[in-house]
């Protein structure tokens, strides 16, 4: 406990770095996955290749991506941007299928009513389909958030600053304190991400609360 207090500023700094490396890809990944998922739903012939293709991305081990991306992107070896790009790829890989399935779960008759009411396709997407798909997408986003927090810590093997450095430091000195502090911080961070997403989902789906359903 005293070790934690003595190193509070380290914990703070590394937590913020971790938020950046795990959180930013969530946002960017979601923004990229939305049009891709929509395409997969709009043109059913794309569904299988898209979900399979992007699912493939997920099978590439994280360490490999972190190390090989600089060669592909032309970034410097220790640049945290490599981690952000890699994590974005993973988030997209996870979310494309979720977005496609979420949009697919919107009942056909709802879509037809919207068209009958005069909604254009674009308006229908943003006003009807997307909001109704939110519960499913947010479930996928929660999984992605927790997964991201854990994967980012692996970048500690490369010395990239984030909470994972507590792990490598603790192990190298056979010292439990930093290890526990790091693990707890990661779990708490994952929890915070989860809560934010749940709250945002609730705010975006007031109709579920109104009818007494659980999101």
């Amino acid at each position: 406990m005293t070790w934690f207090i003595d190193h509070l500023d380290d914990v703070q700094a590394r937590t913020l770095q971790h938020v950046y490396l795990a959180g930013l890809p969530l946002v960017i990944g979601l923004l990229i996955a939305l049009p891709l998922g929509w395409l997969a739903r709009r043109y059913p012939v794309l569904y299988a290749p898209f979900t399979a293709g992007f699912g493939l991305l997920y099978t590439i081990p994280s360490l490999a991506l972190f190390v090989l991306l600089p060669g592909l992107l032309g970034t410097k070896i220790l640049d945290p941007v490599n981690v952000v790009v890699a994590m974005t790829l993973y988030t997209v890989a996870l979310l494309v299928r979720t977005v496609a399935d979420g949009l697919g779960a919107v009942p056909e008759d709802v879509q037809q009513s919207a068209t009958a009411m005069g909604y254009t396709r674009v308006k229908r997407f943003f006003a009807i389909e997307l909001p109704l798909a939110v519960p499913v997408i947010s479930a996928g986003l929660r999984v992605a958030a927790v997964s991201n927090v854990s994967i980012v810590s692996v970048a500690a093997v490369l010395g990239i600053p984030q909470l994972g450095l507590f792990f490598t430091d603790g192990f190298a000195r056979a010292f439990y304190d930093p290890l526990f502090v790091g693990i707890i911080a990661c779990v708490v961070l994952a929890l915070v991400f989860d809560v934010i997403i749940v709250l945002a989902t609730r705010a975006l789906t007031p109709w579920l609360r109104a009818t007494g359903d659980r999101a």
Partner: protein
Amino acid sequence: MKLSRTTLTIATVAALMTTAACGNSGGNPLSTSSSSSSGGSAAAGGITVGSADFPESALLAEIYAGALKAKGVKVTTKLNIGAREVYIPALQDGSIDLIPEYTGVLTQYFDKNAKASDAEGVYTELKAALPPTLTVLDKSAAEDKDALVMKKSKADQLGVKSIADLQGKSKDLVVGGPPEWKTRLTGLPGFKKIYGLEFKQFRPLDAGGPLTLQALKSGQIDAGDLFTTDPSIAENDLVALQDPKNMYAAQNVVPLITKSKSNPTIEGALNAVSAKLDTATLAALVKEVVSDKKDADVVAKEFLSKNNLG
């Protein structure tokens, strides 16, 4: 109603992005040490100190950083980068400017045919072998070498005192070391070339860390790579085998720096540090970090103030 939901969505996304961006600007993802100054990599006049991924290297980096800060230099640290094969490219692409090194192995990295084994000879060879953009400052008396370590009982049982004694016996022994040993001249290729040794099995573990130590103690390996400044050798009834053919040449601690980043102030500060470092001192400092679990920057600060360097 539609309008407010859209606004809400945009607000949520904006909030998430701000949180994420806050992580960036507040935490400065490019620096590791909380004691470092702001700004990204080497800002105007600033210098970035890196370290390898073992505690002694981080400690030396903190000592260098502290000494430079005391002289008013702006310092950022990027510790625990990895093995030499990773951080030398980082040095060459400007991600770091300065790193603590060891003369013998550094020479071998740039010159596979390095021959010298004494401190002065190695240092001369090193200076000749370095690429034009890099340079080394004064070397210190402190040395830390890899050592092939065995359990004392096992060594006695086999009648082995030096690495040369392993000839004929090594085929039955399991050796453990860092993954780099598979390709480095300080590892398996070196044992083959210099002593004619081949081992039954190689277990890739860590760089003289707790995994290697524990594997030695528990018997998963018969011989392992530990560093000569490691307090664990004495504390655990282990013995470092002698190295009569100087596979591990002189390994004096020396600052490796990008020439364009060096200046008289920096050189003066680092040379003063090197003058005060000897093997016994270094070993004692490492013990404080590894055994006593004190922070590297704290131990560094104490060393510097004790020697009027920071």
